[in-house]
């Protein structure tokens, strides 16, 4: 199994006597992973630590073998990219294109190549026609897409998305799903924080449930969604389809529309 990230006994506190993450240990391989959990569980804090923007209070994090305490965040950015929860925290250039070129320009040092990467990334999120607009003249949903493109354009091996679907309509959601699928096909590790359980069920192989700074569940997405009681404790819910299947008395954990439709076509409900 090729290990991409190793987290060892990680603890973190913003202020004394208030630990946000408590002694977390885990390993990420290339399986696409969703991190879910209640508000304030520590999800954003956790990925900022992976990214090297925060440093562990105790414990170690290795990104492709590099200890985040020993290398600079800028150095790590070749390997790991993070799309921030609030796009306003990430955007600081005057045009969409400049914004998306900023990252590749820093790591490639080649303007032509950087621009090529940036334009490709903008095409992926469907913003190629808005390249010369000021990012603040875009709506929140487009601004979020800009922040995604500006990480994708850097082509790191690990890409973390912090609540990418905020403010997106159906079309935006589909764009983001396709971006993730494409990144997966390229062999990248995609980690996503989200509160959208349907999105988790549809896209991710592995799911981690974070609750009050500890890992409550970690496993195959379908297995995780079969643990309804624990999910409830973590203020989570089942995906809509699973809720309906459960209500219909179906024992299996069904996650997608198609699974449920097929089930109904071939089985009788026993109630």
């Amino acid at each position, binding site marked *: 199994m090729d290990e991409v990230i190793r987290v060892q006994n990680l603890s973190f506190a913003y202020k004394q006597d208030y630990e946000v993450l408590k002694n977390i240990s885990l390993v990420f391989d290339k399986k696409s992973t969703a991190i879910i959990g209640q508000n304030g569980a520590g999800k954003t804090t956790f990925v900022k630590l992976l990214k090297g923007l925060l440093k562990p209070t105790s414990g170690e994090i290795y990104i492709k073998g590099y200890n985040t305490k020993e290398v600079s965040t800028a150095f790590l950015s070749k390997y790991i990219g993070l799309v921030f929860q609030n796009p306003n925290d990430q955007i600081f250039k005057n045009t969409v294109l400049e914004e998306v070129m900023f990252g590749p320009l820093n790591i490639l040092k080649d303007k032509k190549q950087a621009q090529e990467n940036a334009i490709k990334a903008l095409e992926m999120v469907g913003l190629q026609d808005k390249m010369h607009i000021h990012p603040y003249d875009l709506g929140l949903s487009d601004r979020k897409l800009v922040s995604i493109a500006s990480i994708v354009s850097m082509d790191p091996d690990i890409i973390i998305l912090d609540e990418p679907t905020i*403010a997106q309509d*159906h079309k935006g959601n589909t764009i983001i799903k396709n971006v993730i699928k494409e990144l997966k096909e390229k062999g990248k590790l995609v980690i996503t924080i989200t509160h959208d359980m349907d999105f988790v069920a549809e896209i991710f192989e592995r799911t981690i449930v974070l609750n009050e700074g500890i890992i409550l569940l970690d496993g195959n997405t379908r297995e995780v969604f079969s643990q309804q009681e624990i999910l409830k404790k973590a203020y989570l819910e089942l995906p809509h389809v699973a809720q309906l299947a459960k209500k219909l008395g179906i024992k299996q954990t069904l996650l997608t529309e198609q699974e449920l439709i097929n089930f109904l076509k071939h089985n009788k409900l026993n109630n």
Partner: protein
Amino acid sequence: MVNLVVEHLKYRYPLGNELALEDISFEVKKGEFIGIIGENGSGKSTLCQAIVGLVPNFYKGAYGGKVLVKEIEVAQSDVSEISSYVGIVFQNPFTQITGSKLTVYEEVAFGLENLGIPREEMIKRIEESLKLLRLFEYRHFNPFELSGGQMQRLAIASVIAMKPDILVLDEPTSQLDPQGSEEVFQAIQDLAKNGMTIIIAEHKIEKIASYADKIILLHKGKLVDFDTPEKIFSREDIEEYGIVPPVYTRICKSLNVKNEAGFYPVTLEQVYYELVKVYG
């Protein structure tokens, strides 16, 4: 009793090329729960801001028609004065924090102080709304030290505490955990039952389907339809407006299961009822 009237509302942003709202008219009764849906850029936020008067009083631009809140024309009055009748929760919670208070508790107090609510009453309301949004244990936190979802909870709590007659919410649960957004929808439904009028723009289509009495469907600044969830989501052309119906409705469409009135079910309970009839 009608307490919000929108008549031939038109609006263009100062730097906009097209109308952001085009000839919008509708009426809302006291205690109704109204959902606004539409694709990105369809005008949901603009409409929300027009109801509280930020459009046009804050953004300027070209404005026509009128918005009447309890018979007051909002474009002609001060946003601050209107704020005792209409509250708004912004799309981005970060921009809702006043920045002039040091704790979550005082942040909720801000609006109440301005409205001149007596202190005892103020404290009661602050604690109620913080508990409702599960923020009470964070009451001593600096608002800027909250997580994204906690900040969104704070934005909602601050406005609910002001007890407006009309509560406008612009995607208020986009960053909430699943149970949190369910709790918020339930809480505002309770408020509606007690007579508060609710206007909520949302992309969470399943939630709107099960909570809204009626839905406004916007497309490119125009009001396409204003009707019950069943009727809106049973429209054959719904996807042309960038809206995909709730999962439950989609499943029923694939299986061709309709209710007695000839519409596709839109909520968990309804779809369960219909499916058991067919497959049970």
